[in-house]
């Protein structure tokens, strides 16, 4: 089978999976304890109010019709209206989502880059004291709860040293100056707020890539072909290049899953740093039972994981010829 056919097939399976997850979320939210209308209305609504909600949300229709509308809305890109802000979910979520992504994606990439390089360094020095004890710092950082690291950084660099602001994404003055939300990203004030949460995420996520890269390098280094390359006289630079390419495969597999973990871990970090991202939004939405928003955030995370894996799978077929595409 050609690669193209494989990609198409793989994409098809991806779409099916997303369809499944979105359907599952529909069922899960209907199965939640309590009447869905009550859930939507929040606490203390009168029965006439509830009836009104049922009417306007189409909850009196049979379940399959509700499901049909739900899916139709999702497909046309309309995940509904937040009943807290009465804004369409899409525009309501957009700014926090951007705030989160601009924090988490670079942080994860930096964590993976530094972690991989550090792990590779440990791996190439296997058998030394550096290799044995060098894994301790990232392990310590990786196993400490991220909010704790965040609080620690705040205590040291904000409270004690006063180098960075305590929380938020920008000061009031900055908010006042900018015309649109996205202009904030261009201010220095934003970036000084950015440093500590960014560092927290990097520290938290160094551990896995470092650990896996270390093991992978030791493993590949021990494979016979590296001896053959040495004995055939390949220069150490070339051999190092081969070693890194081969060793990084398992780390790449890790990336989408770790990004998803990071996004779900955002709730705590964003709360600690008072960062107006989807973590904070999700937290608030759960408290106020803003179901359409919660639903949409879940879907985004699910799609991210599914697409992340698709990208990794496709990437693998490019980088590793042993991944055969079966007939």
């Amino acid at each position, binding site marked *: 089978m050609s690669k193209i056919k494989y990609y198409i*097939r793989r994409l098809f*399976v991806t779409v*099916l999976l997303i369809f499944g997850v979105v359907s599952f979320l529909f069922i899960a939210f209907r199965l939640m304890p309590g009447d869905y209308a009550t859930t939507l209305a929040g606490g203390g609504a009168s029965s006439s109010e509830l009836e009104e909600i049922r009417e306007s949300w189409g909850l009196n229709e049979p379940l399959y019709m509700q499901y049909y509308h739900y899916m139709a809305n999702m497909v046309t890109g309309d995940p509904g209206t937040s009943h807290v802000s009465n804004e369409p979910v899409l525009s309501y979520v957009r700014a926090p989502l951007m705030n989160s992504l601009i924090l988490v994606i670079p942080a994860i990439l930096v964590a993976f880059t530094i972690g991989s390089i550090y792990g590779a360094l440990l791996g190439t020095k296997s058998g030394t004291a550096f290799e044995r004890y060098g894994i301790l710092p990232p392990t310590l950082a990786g196993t400490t709860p991220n909010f704790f690291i965040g609080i620690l950084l705040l205590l040291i660099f904000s409270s004690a040293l006063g180098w960075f602001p305590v929380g938020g994404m920008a000061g009031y003055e900055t908010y006042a100056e900018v015309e649109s939300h996205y202009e904030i990203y261009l201010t220095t004030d934003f970036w000084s707020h950015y440093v500590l949460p960014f560092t927290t995420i990097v520290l938290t996520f160094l551990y896995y890539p470092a650990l896996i890269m270390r093991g992978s390098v030791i493993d590949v280094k021990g494979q016979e072909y590296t001896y053959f390359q040495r004995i055939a006289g390949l220069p150490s630079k070339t051999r190092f290049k081969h070693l890194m390419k081969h060793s990084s495969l398992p780390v790449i597999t890790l990336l989408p899953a770790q990004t998803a973990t990071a996004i779900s871990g955002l709730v705590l970090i964003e709360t600690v740093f008072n960062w107006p991202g989807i973590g904070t939004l999700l937290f608030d939405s759960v408290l106020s039972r803003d179901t359409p928003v919660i639903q949409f955030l879940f879907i985004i995370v699910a799609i991210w994981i599914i697409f992340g894996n698709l990208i990794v799978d496709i990437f693998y077929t490019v980088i590793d010829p042993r991944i055969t595409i079966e007939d």
Partner: protein
Amino acid sequence: MTTNNETEPILELRNVEKHFEQSTNIAETLRQTFFGEGAQEPVRAVDGVNLELAENQVHGIIGESGCGKSTLLLTLMGEHEPTGGEILYNGQPISEFDKADWKALRRKIQVIFQDPFNTMNPHFTVRETLKEPFKIHGIETDEEELLDMLETVRLTPAEEYIDRRESQLSGGEKQRVSIARALILEPDVVLADEPVSMLDVSTQASILKLLSELTEEYDVAMFYVSHDLSTVSYVCDEVNVMYLGRIVESAPTRKILSDPKHPYTQALINAIPVPDPFHDRSWTELDGTPGDPQNLPSGCRFKDRCPERMDVCDQQPAFEVHDEETTHQVACHLYDEQPVGDSPIGVNKTGVSES
């Protein structure tokens, strides 16, 4: 297989099969559902093996890597459940065994592994290694017994060896410890998986000699699994040659070495280097490796590599007694004309073509 009337076999394999289904994950299932693709062929690692092991007998199971001999051994160890056929221990089918029976069986069937370098816990001393089987089965033991066992496997002075760790033992010594560990609970059957293939040939001799003496002394029966026919004569009473999941020839050791019938057995014997520069052995005619146990050819599984290939080889050859005086059996159409009509009881002459 012909039945041995004198003694009841201690371990008997009746048409044992071990097929591995190809893994199916969600994506695979979806693919099969939506693209209408059938499930993949199973890997037929062991495919209808009949063997009988009588008390105090040593049977060799010989074949190249990938022939299914290791899977067969794992099945006998209880690590795999056979997908067909039956294994009988002292006449009892082990599929009916309960937990207690299994525990007893595990004591009575012991294993010696191929790699002496990985079977010992590197943190254990020889003492701890030998004590472990007792602990597992809740049996009391004393130092005396352990020392005796070490003497038996010629690790002398035993007092000196008992406190050594893995790193202080040579390959041959480690394999002696494995043998001691296997025999210390006085099992009925020992399964030896290529016990000398990781050792220097010059060390192999001493280990084989020891194995052979101890199976006598301890009255144990043994399945000896190996890819190498050159050393079977030092341990085995009988040899079974296995190819892609099936036994293709079986005979008493001397017989099979002096008069191999199956072209595959002949190739195995011919490929053994002869330690003599004056001898002019011809190189093997066989090409390639055994096929893929997932896409087996119909009929004789050796036909694609066989120098004697005939048209009839597309049909599965019966496993027949070839020689009336002995128990020499072979599954090959070259011997179809041989009179088998008057052959002893219980010979399976059917099963000609493969489904």
